[in-house]
């Protein structure tokens, strides 16, 4: 077997894990979004909504901590936003799993690569660019 083919086989186990993680993340986030959505419509279905002009979301819905605080209060809009956060977290978790996968293969170059990508993503989520 060529070197590339051998590595392809090694990567296969990692690929299976990544596939399961991506699917699980999407299903979880869609479920949370749906629950929050139903709760919102049940209580505010008749409220007036308009997105013609950009006003920006309130501060609480802009940070991870704020969203979690809202969810703890049982606020339906915060629950939807938690679903969005879970979705954003899915590719980030995928990169984190890759770090572990490459470390198991002792492929330090790609461990470094994945760590750099992970750092960039965390920076965007935590600091807002």
């Amino acid at each position, binding site marked *: 077997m*060529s070197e*590339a*083919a051998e*590595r*392809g086989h090694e*990567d296969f186990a*990692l*690929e*299976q894990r990544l*596939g399961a993680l*991506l*699917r699980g993340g*999407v299903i979880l986030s*869609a479920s949370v*979004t*749906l629950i*929050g*959505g139903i709760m*919102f*419509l049940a209580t*505010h279905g*008749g*409220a*007036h*909504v*308009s*997105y*013609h*002009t*950009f006003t*920006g*979301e*309130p501060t609480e819905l*802009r940070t991870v901590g704020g969203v979690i605080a809202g969810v703890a209060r049982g606020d339906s*809009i*915060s629950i*939807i*936003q938690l*679903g*969005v956060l879970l*979705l*954003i*977290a*899915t*590719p*980030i978790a995928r*990169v984190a799993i*890759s770090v572990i996968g490459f470390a198991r293969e002792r492929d330090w*170059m*790609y461990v470094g*690569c*994945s760590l750099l*990508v992970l750092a*960039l*993503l965390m*920076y*965007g*989520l935590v600091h*807002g*660019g």
Partner: protein
Amino acid sequence: MHALSFTLITLGGGLLAGLVGALTGLGGGVVLVPLLTLGLGVDIRYAIGSSLVCVIATSSGAAAAFVREGFTNIRVGMFLEIATPVGALLGPVVAVYVSSSTLAVIFGIVLMFSAAQSLRQRVEHIAVTEPGTLGARLRLASTYPHDGTLVSYGVTRVPAGFAMMFAAGILSALLGIGSGVVKVLAMDRAMHLPYKVSTTTSNFMIGVTAAASAGVYLHRGYINPVLVMPVVLGVLAGAMLGARLLARAHVKPLRMLFTAIMVALAVEMLYQGLTKRI
């Protein structure tokens, strides 16, 4: 409009965008933003925020299937993913200085280009076995399943591909799209990866690119939960339906119809942008 009726209409719009995205292979974002802005009068910034969230959803859902089939080159993906988030983190910073009208014009151009790309014949490269220097040093060579056997391929012109990915990251963040078209061009044309490997690896990367800019836009208040909820659920349902339809034959007339819709949306975006209506 009342929240309930708006939600139902947006759910339908998301469904259509997800369906078009899956059948044309372009992802939902490039259709969703014009649909929300032109069809429902949503401010382009809210539309971009919602679209980015949907892009993560559809690309992660599709990548889950592709990764398992062994087409995706996770090393190429991971290496190039250094470039896309840098672009994606810069995009929202640039966006502050770009007017909505200019965004609409850029969007129209990209949409036109994407429509042309969706009609292009998908030519499968004969596997390149001679990798470039950097491609060899980064150990990017891999195999993919083809006609029941594993075919080996090498990777060339890595720096060119890397630069194109940086541009794809900026474009993705500016417009709220996955920039799959640019990513596939970078891998298929510049780096000479097999077409199927290019499209699946592009899909794999899109989630990371979109997650980087979605994080930034969340902080800037572009992501409105009440708007995002029906859009993302609709797009996911549409994408699943599209995947089912793709498994059957005769989607070509449908693809032609959707490409025509994209051209119409592109013209409208350009018109609205140039006349400063958006």
